[in-house]
């Protein structure tokens, strides 16, 4: 097992290396670069003449001086490769660079600052999702082709099919504006009051986005649970349990349910990236200052290191999630041997 994990970790490093090269090259190919755009803007605001050839050359020299320390000056192929290794060297030392958009704060700090809101939303949504989807899935499987099964399956399919931005906008229109129950966007409405009141205000703002996230993700988990439970129900040991004369409740909740949990644990490991990485679209629709929204802006504005940092963060989470899923599989199910 130890050997297996070490081998997988080495492989993960290789994968992350490949991912980082592709990401860096693509991000550097983006025409917008926040630092350069800001500098040109600042010069224009200052009234510096940029029309003459000499001024242009001067600007280039200045930009070069500003961008070179970050390895962002040269946009040629070799320049990008050189910049990549500069980035990689710092990354390996634990320095992910600075975010130009956020007053040159280190990328780790920026991600850490905005991540927890996204994590909070996703975590509560995940808990709710599990609390509804898993019992429902088991119930549907036990009463396969029953009325409940039929209705729940169709509703789940509808939930899976709904695009988050469509449902989000519908909810904003209905519940936030037409009925006036919730807030349309943002995290706070800027009220003054005790800390508790502000907290309640924040929660109030988060109800709609959470509802959207839960409604849209419930379907997948419920179907997964249902399929697995059906498989378990057909297994020989369930027949044995029934033959022993166990009550139906005992069969379902002791024998079926616990075996259903095995694939579920692995499935939940895969939610790691969404848990920490934020929901880019939902945050966008509700204008929440979560990590997904911040990363979206960083990508659009060419905040190179923050964009790089966020994407690497997601990639690391994905790799770790997959590894975790495999290891958990062996931990939960003693029949599984991790080998080779």
């Amino acid at each position: 097992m130890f050997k297996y994990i070490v081998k997988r970790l080495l492989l993960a490093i290789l994968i992350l290396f490949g991912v980082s090269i592709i990401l860096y090259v693509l991000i550097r190919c983006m025409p917008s670069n926040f630092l350069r755009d800001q500098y040109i803007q600042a010069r224009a605001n200052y009234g510096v003449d940029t029309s003459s050839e000499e001024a242009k050359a001067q600007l280039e020299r200045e930009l070069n001086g500003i961008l070179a320390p970050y390895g962002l000056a040269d946009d040629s192929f070799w320049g990008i490769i050189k910049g990549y290794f500069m980035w990689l060297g710092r990354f390996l030392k634990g320095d992910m660079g600075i975010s130009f958009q956020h007053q040159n704060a280190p990328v780790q700090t920026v991600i850490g600052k905005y991540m927890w809101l996204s994590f909070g939303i996703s975590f509560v949504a995940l808990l709710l999702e599990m609390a509804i989807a898993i019992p429902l899935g088991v119930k549907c499987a036990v009463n396969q082709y029953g009325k409940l099964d039929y209705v729940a399956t169709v509703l789940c399919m509808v939930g899976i099919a709904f695009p988050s931005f469509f449902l989000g906008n519908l909810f904003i229109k209905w519940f936030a504006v037409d009925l006036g129950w919730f807030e349309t966007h943002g995290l706070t409405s800027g009220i003054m009051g005790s800390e508790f009141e502000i907290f309640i205000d924040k929660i109030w703002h988060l109800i709609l986005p959470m509802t959207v996230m839960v409604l849209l993700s419930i379907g997948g988990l419920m179907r997964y649970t249902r399929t697995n439970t059906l498989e378990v129900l057909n297994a020989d040991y369930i027949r044995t349990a029934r033959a022993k004369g166990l009550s139906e409740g005992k069969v379902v909740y002791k024998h079926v349910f616990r075996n259903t949990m095995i694939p579920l644990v692995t499935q939940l490991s895969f939610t790691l990236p969404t848990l920490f990485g934020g929901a880019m679209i939902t945050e966008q629709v509700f204008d929440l200052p979560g990590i997904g929204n911040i990363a979206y802006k960083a990508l659009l504005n060419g905040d190179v290191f923050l964009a790089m940092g966020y994407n690497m963060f997601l990639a690391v989470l994905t790799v770790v999630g997959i590894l975790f899923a495999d290891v958990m599989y062996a931990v939960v199910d003693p029949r599984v041997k991790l080998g080779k």
Partner: protein
Amino acid sequence: MKKKDTAPLNNGEELTENTVVPENTTVCDSATATESSAAANVVESAVSEGSVKAADQSLTEEEKGDELHGENLNERAKVLSPWMTVLKRFFRSKLSVIGLVTIVVLFLFAFLGPVFSPWAANGGTVTDTDPARIKEIISASPITYYVGDEAFEALAVSIRLPQVVKLGDINAAHWLGTDDMGYDVLTRLMYGGRVSLTIGFVVVIIETIIGVIIGGLAGYFGKWVDNLIMRLVDILSCIPQLPIMLILSVIFTESGLGDSIAKLYYMMMILCLIGWTGTARLVRGQILSLREQEFMLAAKSSGLSTFSKIFKHLLPNVIPQLIVSMTLGLGSIILTEATLGFLNIGAPYGTATWGNLINLASNSTYRQYYPNLWVGAGVCITLAILAFNFVGDGLRDAFDPKMKR
């Protein structure tokens, strides 16, 4: 779906009755009347359960014995080809039929709808204006102007641009109103459907071709080829999809492709380049297990070429899974296109696609006061994804030999 459950149960009942019935006949040979009535009962119960099967009929007909003597076996037993069985199973599920009908309706709406729309098409978009009226000449008078000493004769024309109803409400002429540019929303929905559905199909087909070739190579050759390809697949599937689409879209927009339809094709290309990994994994996994089976040993010992081994013997066995994954993939591609459109980074602004239409919802005024602009697109996207998922699920169940009927 209820039928699926009752059918095998029903079958079991009949079988037990069958074992009973011959005993009856041996005990009282003369009681043919009661026997045939029992058989009729079985048939009736089968009919009432709504599942008349060829197999059942042949069973019950056999019981009737001498009446059917002399008839040809072919006339009694129907032999279904595997594909016919799949089709039969597929159409037995209500949900898949609903899905199929929805898809057909959406296609008709998108591809035939504009024919009946009174609003003219203009490069894939539709204006509220009659094209004949666009250049309505109000006055034309000859003028003379000078460049240096040379005189030029010209015709000064003043034309009246037709009044465009912007942000019109729902009315008899515009069933879904008109949008911010004066386009008829319903007609734009139709044209949007053309783009969105076509993208779905093209991307899925290309993705599958790439995935089959690469996955097939990895699965068949194994060893270092497999290792290399699978690491590449790992890398590609670890790249977060939405950020990558964002980056690529910005690159294309800034490099001057932003307002041309070519950007759409580039986006499709990128969707393909990122999306083939799933298919490749699927094909590789299947081929790895199929490779070890006896029929491949037979193929090898009869000296077939590698080409025919892969394409004639291995791939046809993967086709069921491929069809299912393609159908389910269609839904997800339509969703991706819509997401890009919503973030305003998909097809160029002004092109009618479902994604671009729903993008109007991000404007809070339109969201609140003009739901006719974007709800239609949202419903179309949801319906399309739902329908493809229904059909995909139905096909998966139909192809699955483990499913009882």
